[in-house]
């Protein structure tokens, strides 16, 4: 379906910590390797990972899954706009996230355009509020390098000129009808990430 990848804020934070450690080891002031052998331990060191409310962690995982499903449904639907839209689009998206995707699908069909390939995603979830009307924020940098519009009649590129290939997006998740959904998804085509 798609080559999109998922990344939680915790894994992202871990990567940053790892990168920071790596950078610190490469600074000019770094005295270099010491002659002291590394300390050997016989018992595992307590994990420095901050404690996370299990309910928040569970919600974050669910939101990322829904967000990925929303994009997968768009990729499937936009691959052939002459076919009925992927039913998962209505499963994972509501409000403007759904109707904007449907509008796009309609306009693509009218233009004789389809999308080939798949985007690469890097979503990060934050501000999770639990409850019957729970909400969360999702920021992403959508990489369009391998997901481009073509004219279905010829296969020629239909991409508008001078488009950025990495587009920042801001989405909101909404706990609706007993499940998480994507409620809004705003793209910032005038900038890059």
């Amino acid at each position, binding site marked *: 379906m798609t080559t999109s990848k998922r990344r939680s804020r915790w894994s992202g934070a871990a990567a940053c910590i790892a990168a920071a450690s790596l950078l610190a080891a490469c600074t000019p002031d770094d005295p270099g390797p010491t002659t002291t052998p590394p300390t050997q331990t016989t018992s595992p060191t307590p994990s420095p990972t901050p404690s996370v409310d299990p309910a928040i962690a569970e919600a974050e995982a669910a939101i990322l899954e829904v967000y990925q499903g929303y994009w997968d449904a768009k990729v499937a639907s936009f691959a052939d*706009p*002459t*076919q*009925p*839209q*992927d*039913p998962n*689009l*209505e499963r994972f998206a*509501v*409000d*403007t*996230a*759904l*109707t*904007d*995707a*449907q*509008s*796009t*699908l*309609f*306009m*693509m*069909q*009218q*233009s*004789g*355009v389809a*999308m080939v390939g798949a*985007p690469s995603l890097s979503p990060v979830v934050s501000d999770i509020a639990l409850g*019957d*009307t729970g909400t969360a924020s999702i920021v992403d940098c*959508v990489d*369009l390098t391998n*997901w*481009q*519009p073509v*004219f*279905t*009649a*010829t296969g*020629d590129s*239909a*991409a*508008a000129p001078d*488009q950025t290939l990495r*587009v920042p*997006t801001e989405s909101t998740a*909404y706990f*609706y*009808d007993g499940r998480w959904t994507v409620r*809004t*998804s*705003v*793209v910032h*085509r005038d900038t890059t990430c």
Partner: protein
Amino acid sequence: MLSRAGLALTLILGSATAAAATTTDGTVICPPGSPFCWVEVADPGQPAPPPPVGGGPGTSTGGTRQCVIDRTGVVVPCHSESFGWFNSTDDCYYQLVDQPPPGGDPLWEGRYPDGDIYAVTCVDPLNAPGTNGGWTWLPSPPDGYGATETTPGELGRVG
């Protein structure tokens, strides 16, 4: 929840025929919420059939309803399972949301349980440059909702 997806799009778009040509006319289409834009072909769709006597696009003489996107002249179905019912006054489809958000949602603006929430899908890119669809509260069904014959609103636009 909205009605099931499925047959809808083919029904909706069956008559909104895509152009086979790839000669572009320079118009760039950037749908709301889409991370990509594309160039429009010179002939973006099937032109509307000749208007009936005494009426313009999107109207009839009171008989079977005909739905047309004003700007492009493309004839579209007046109803689809996923999109809902076409409203000729704004070129958007309206679908009643069966499971609306709770009454405390800002969408209701304190008016719950009066009126209903509709999912609005707008289909003219130049008439809808930004997100102007999505869930919308209405006190009563919009023009064209459930209509199979020319609506009062459509008749009112003639002349």
